[in-house]
């Protein structure tokens, strides 16, 4: 136990250092062409809560379905080109409107995973507003 506490400052410093290293990429995403772009896709708290609860597990690095990750990675959206962001927003809207997401077989096993009407509306209106902005 004593040994552990001796190491803890080192551990803390390491964590801090790692954290620092992460910061620049988070706060100033540079697109591939080298131009810095403002993050067009912002998540109001309510929207983020729904995404975290109902979509994120499959569509993030921690998901284990390759198809889901290939189609949509929330954490990557702000790194995409404007056009691909527009396509992502449109795909999100269509998948919710057609009742394709979350997938039917998933909802069968976990009924609480389904989107409520209000949640569906919240997400589609959010995506629609971003899509409109992207097309300006």
């Amino acid at each position: 136990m004593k040994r552990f506490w001796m190491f803890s400052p080192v551990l803390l410093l390491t964590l801090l250092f790692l954290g620092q290293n992460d910061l620049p990429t988070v706060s100033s995403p540079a697109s591939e062409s080298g131009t810095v772009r403002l993050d067009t896709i912002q998540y109001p708290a309510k929207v983020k809560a729904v995404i975290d609860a109902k979509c994120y597990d499959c569509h993030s690095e921690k998901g284990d379905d390759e198809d889901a990750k290939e189609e949509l990675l929330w954490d990557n959206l702000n790194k995409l080109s404007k056009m691909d962001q527009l396509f992502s927003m449109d795909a999100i809207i269509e998948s919710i409107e057609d009742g394709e997401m979350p997938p039917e077989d998933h909802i069968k096993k976990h009924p609480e995973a389904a989107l409520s009407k209000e949640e569906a509306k919240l997400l589609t209106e959010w995506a629609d507003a971003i899509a409109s902005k992207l097309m300006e």
Partner: protein
Amino acid sequence: MKVLKIVGGLLLAALIIAQFVAPKPPANQEENPGDLIENGLAEGQVAQLLKNSCYDCHSNQVNYPWYSYVAPVSILVRHDVLEGKEELNFSEWQDYDKRRKLRKLKEVGEVLEEDEMPLGIYTLIHQGAKLSDADKESLIEWSEDLMKRTMAE
């Protein structure tokens, strides 16, 4: 021998009953004011290719051969046409908003480049719907061109 006869008889009976109870493929629609080709957004050879290779699953004007109404083929055809139209319906093209048109055109390019469409099970029977490399190229070119025109709208 007797067992074979009974099994055969049961199968035949099931097949006959299936003709009455299995759902039929979705009906066509005569009037399609929003149709891509009707609106002049694809012309000539490209329009021909789309009609010939894609419209049988992605439009309200499917060319149903007689056997497509016979179960169990009808069940497969019904499934493909319903799913196909849900993903992309050229007969209702003008109902899509701008962003969806753009995305569908991008997907058309993708499925052609990856040889995903027309579905393999379809070209197995409809050899004439197979696309040559030149066909694919002209469709891809058309989709890219229509994307530019749609963007400028």
